[in-house]
């Protein structure tokens, strides 16, 4: 790891001004992605602005028909939150399936969304649930936020402060984990709110998380697992690597979507 200057701001405002002063600096959240990247010398920020001591960035609350989660909220807090389990059980289950216990004790929702790893879990939830990403400057809808792998609408010096998830009528996540890394080979989050059905796919797209129009069309007429029978997803634009071909990933998308819908409609 290359040397860097370290700052531990007490507020979001201080963090933002430190980030503005340190143009090659980066914010540090749980460090579960950034520190391994720095150790491999794939990133060498001149300064780290640690959000771990900044007030008001962590916590979960229900505000009207939304669940609002602070950017520094750890995966373990989302997975065990009574509020999340009650309002959006699929989101709590998703958090429970990230990495391992020690990673969940450190990693944060804000870090995961800002990083937008093409195989990460949270981006699919944000996109399917039509979340709003609230930064120190503005509000960004999930549809605009994710802009291809490892790329987001965040500008220089912009910090995610919280994420607001509208409570769906039905939602669930199903992941086919890579057997070694446990990241998603294919992960599908389905959500229904009123007549609006959104299906977001992670792990499969060579350009990061995306919405599956094929699955959405099938489920819009009938939100039922059988509505997905015979639905085919094109393999073009999907990842192919040593773990799975593009065709196999294309095949897995409706399969995972079907399991997710079964979960969402159970009980």
């Amino acid at each position, binding site marked *: 790891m290359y040397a*860097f200057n370290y700052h531990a701001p007490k507020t979001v405002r201080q963090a933002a001004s430190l980030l503005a002063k340190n143009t090659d600096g980066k914010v540090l959240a749980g460090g579960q992605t950034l*520190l391994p990247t720095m150790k491999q010398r794939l990133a060498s920020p001149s300064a780290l602005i640690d959000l771990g001591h900044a007030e008001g960035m962590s916590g979960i609350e229900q505000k009207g028909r939304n669940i609002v989660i602070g950017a520094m909220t750890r995966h373990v807090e989302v997975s065990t939150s009574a509020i999340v389990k009650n309002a959006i059980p699929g989101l709590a289950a998703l958090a429970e399936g990230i990495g391992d216990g020690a990673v969940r004790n450190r990693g944060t929702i804000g870090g995961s969304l800002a990083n937008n790893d093409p195989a990460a879990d949270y981006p699919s939830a944000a996109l399917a649930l039509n979340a709003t990403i609230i930064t120190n400057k503005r509000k960004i809808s999930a549809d605009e936020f994710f802009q291809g792998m490892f790329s987001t609408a965040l500008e220089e010096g912009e910090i995610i402060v919280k994420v607001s998830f509208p409570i769906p009528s039905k939602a669930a996540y199903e992941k086919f984990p890579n057997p070694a890394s446990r990241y998603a080979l294919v992960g599908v989050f389905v959500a229904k709110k009123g007549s609006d059905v959104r299906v977001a796919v992670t792990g499969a797209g060579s350009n990061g998380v995306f919405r599956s129009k094929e699955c959405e069309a099938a489920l819009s007429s009938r939100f039922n697992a059988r509505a997905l029978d015979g639905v085919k997803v094109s393999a073009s634009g999907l990842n192919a690597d040593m773990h799975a071909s593009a065709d196999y990933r294309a095949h897995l998308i409706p399969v995972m979507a079907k399991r997710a819908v079964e979960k969402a409609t159970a009980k």
Partner: protein
Amino acid sequence: MASVTLTVNGKQVTATVDPRTLLAQFLREHLHLTGTHVGCDTSQCGACVVHVNGRAIKSCTTLAVSCDGALVTTIEGIGTPDNLHPMQAAFRENHGLQCGFCTPGMIMSAIDIVNRRGNKLDEHTIREELEGNICRCTGYHNIVKAVAQGAAAMN
């Protein structure tokens, strides 16, 4: 350089460190608490797991300075050779280790599992929860038995 104050196994320590010092490095090289092992240094194996403010974390993937003000517990802080922690005793009784390299991390993770999930743990839960701890020797079977017995003994 940056200053960091931690309470490690009940003792307060203050040090001036290069900010890039990992918690694992700080524990091993500055405090000479070499029970915390570094197996992979790439966040995969869990040999470096310690507790920070009561939660298991990978100390190879955490900066020491990020833990300023925190309570840290390492394998050296949970029992003594004459008075083992119930989880340590269970690993010994069940032959839950061979070379022992993964053992400190396994034990610190196992205690965290009990703290989170209670002390009646079935085999499936234990195997799922040990996702982040890799053992090159034992084949896990005796580790799983040890965790179940240690968990019950932590009542």
